[in-house]
C-alpha cells in the first residue's frame, strides 16, 4: 500500500514540476474571466455600434456615440474630475493614516481596526451615510449651527463635493491598509536603523517610509482611481442630475423607456471602460518600475 502511495506521489511531483501543471491551475479562473468579460464587453461594444438592437434590424452606426456627444463629453469630464480628486485625497490621507498606524503603538492598532471597518462598509451605505451627514438638513448642518440656506451645496450641488468625500473616505482606508500590509515589518526594522544612525523623524519618513511605500501607494491609488471611474451608486445618490458621471449616464439611458437609447447607454459604458483601461495601460509600467526598485 505504501509502495503504491509512494510511486503515485512521485509521479505527481514530477507532473506538478512541469509548467503545464501551473497552466491547469490557472485555467478555470482565467477562462471564467475571459468568457464572462469577453462576452459582456463584446455585447456592449456591439450594442453601442447598433449591432445588437433590442428591436429592429442591426445596422452599423456610430449614432450611439454622436447623438449625445455633448452629454458624453460632459459626463467624461465629470467622471475624470471626480475620480482624480477623490484618488488624490485618498492617497494623501491613506498615507497619513498608514504613517500614523505604523508609528504609534496602541493608537496605531485602533486606527488600523477603524480602517478595516471602513473598508468592509459597502459604498452604498457610505453614500447613504454621507448624504445624512452633509446634506442641507444633515447632521453637520444641524450641529454646526449654520442655517440651511447658507449651507454649502455639497450633495447634488454644482461640484461633486459629497461624492468625492465619500469616495475619498472609503478609498483612503483601502490605501492605508495596502500600504501598511506591504511595508509593516520592513519599516519597523529600517526605521530603527535610521534612528540609530541619527535620522530625525521627518527624515525617517521621507527617506525610509516614503520610498518603501511607493509601490503599494501607487498600485492602490491606481485601483482606487479606476474603481471611482466605474462606480455607480455613490454619484447616483450624492451627485446632481447634470452633468452626471459616465456610469450614472449609462444606467439612466439603459433603463430609459425609449429602447432607442440603448446604443447611447452602451456608448457611455464603452467610454468608461476605455478610459479605465487606458489609465491602467499608461500607469501600469510606472507602478511596475516603482516595484522593480525593491
Amino acid at each position, binding site marked *: 500500500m505504501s509502495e503504491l502511495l509512494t510511486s503515485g506521489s512521485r509521479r505527481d511531483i514530477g507532473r506538478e514540476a512541469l509548467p503545464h501543471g501551473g497552466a491547469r491551475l490557472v485555467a478555470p479562473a482565467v477562462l471564467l474571466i475571459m468568457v464572462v468579460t469577453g462576452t459582456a464587453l463584446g455585447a456592449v461594444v456591439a450594442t453601442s455600434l447598433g449591432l445588437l438592437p433590442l428591436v429592429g434590424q442591426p445596422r452599423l452606426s456610430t449614432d450611439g456615440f454622436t447623438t449625445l456627444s455633448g452629454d458624453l463629453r460632459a459626463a467624461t469630464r465629470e467622471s475624470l474630475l471626480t475620480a482624480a480628486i477623490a484618488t488624490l485625497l485618498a492617497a494623501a490621507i491613506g498615507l497619513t493614516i498608514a504613517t500614523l498606524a505604523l508609528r504609534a503603538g496602541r493608537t496605531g492598532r485602533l486606527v488600523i481596526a*477603524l480602517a478595516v471597518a471602513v473598508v468592509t462598509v459597502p459604498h452604498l451605505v457610505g453614500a447613504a*451615510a454621507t448624504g445624512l451627514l452633509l446634506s442641507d438638513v444633515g447632521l453637520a448642518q444641524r450641529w454646526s449651527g449654520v442655517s440651511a440656506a447658507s449651507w454649502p451645496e455639497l450633495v447634488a450641488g454644482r461640484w461633486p463635493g459629497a461624492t468625492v468625500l465619500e469616495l475619498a473616505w472609503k478609498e483612503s482606508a483601502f490605501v492605508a491598509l495596502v500600504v501598511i500590509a506591504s511595508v509593516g515589518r520592513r519599516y519597523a526594522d529600517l526605521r530603527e536603523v535610521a534612528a540609530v544612525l541619527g535620522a530625525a523623524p521627518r527624515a525617517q519618513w521621507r527617506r525610509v517610509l516614503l520610498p518603501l511605500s511607493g509601490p503599494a501607494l501607487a498600485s492602490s491609488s491606481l485601483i482606487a482611481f479606476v474603481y471611482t471611474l466605474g462606480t455607480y451608486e455613490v454619484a447616483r445618490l450624492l451627485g446632481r442630475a447634470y452633468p452626471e458621471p459616465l456610469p450614472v449616464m449609462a444606467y439612466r439611458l439603459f433603463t430609459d423607456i425609449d429602447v432607442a437609447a440603448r446604443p447611447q447607454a452602451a456608448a457611455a459604458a464603452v467610454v468608461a471602460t476605455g478610459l479605465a483601461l487606458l489609465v491602467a495601460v499608461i500607469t501600469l509600467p510606472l507602478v511596475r518600475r516603482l516595484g522593480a526598485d525593491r
Partner: protein
Amino acid sequence: MMRRTRLRRRSARQSRLTLGPALLAFWLVVPLVPLLMWAVSSRWSGASRLPQDWGLRGWQEALDAGMLPALTRSWVLGVAVALIATPLGAMAGRALGWRLLRRPALPSLVLLAPVVLAPIAVAMGLDVVILRLRIPGEAAVVLVLSVFALPYTTFTMRATYLGLDPALEEQARVLGASSRQARHRVTLPAATTGLVTATGLAFLVGWSDYAVTLLIGGGQIVTAPMLVGSSAAGSGNDALTSTLAISATLPPLVALAVFTYAASRRRTAAQS
C-alpha cells in the same frame, strides 16, 4: 528658561501626537455617526440638534419592508460568490505564488483585469446576452460578481502561497502522502488565514453589491443593498434608511471581529 522652552516644546509635540490620531479617527468614524443617530430616533424634524423622540421606529419599518428576507438573499449571494471565487482563486494563487507557470505575465494580467472594468458595463453587456439565451438573472449576477471577486481571491492566495514553502508538501509526499493528502493535510491548513481572508473578500463582493444586482436583476432580486438604495434614493425616511444601512453593514463586521478575536486567541495560545 531653557528648560521651560524645552518643556513647552515637548508638550506641543505631545499634543501633536494625540491630535493626529484623533483627527484621523474622526475622519474614519464621523460619516457613520448619522446612521447610528437616525437608527435610534423615531422623530427628528426641523433643524433640531437631537431627535425629538428616541425609539426604534426605523427597525420596525425595516422589518415590515422585508429586511430579513433581503439579508438572507444577500447572504446566499455572498456565499455563492465565495464558493466559486475562493477555490478558483486558490488554485490560480498557488500557480502564481509557487511560480508554476512558465509565462505568468499574461494570466496575471487577465486575473487582474476585472479590477479595471466598470461593473455596470459588464452587467449591461451580459444583460443583453442573457436575455437572448434565457439564462436566469440570478445565475448571471453570481457569475459576474464571481468574476469581480476573482482578483481579490487570486492575489490574496498568491501572497499566501508566496509565504509557504512548497518543500513541505513535497516532504509529505516523500513520506507517503498522495498529492491530494499532502495538499489537504499540509498546505491548506498552513494557508488557513489566507483562505479565510479570500473567502471573506469574495463574500463581501456578493454581499455588498448594488449596481450589478440592480442592472441584471432589474429590481426583481431584492437584496439588502437594494432596500438601502431605494430607501436612500426616494423614501425621505431617514430612520428607515439608517436602519437598513446598519443591517447591511453589521453582519460582516461582526464576523470579522469574531474571526480576528479567535485568531489572536489562537496565536496567544500557540505562543504560551
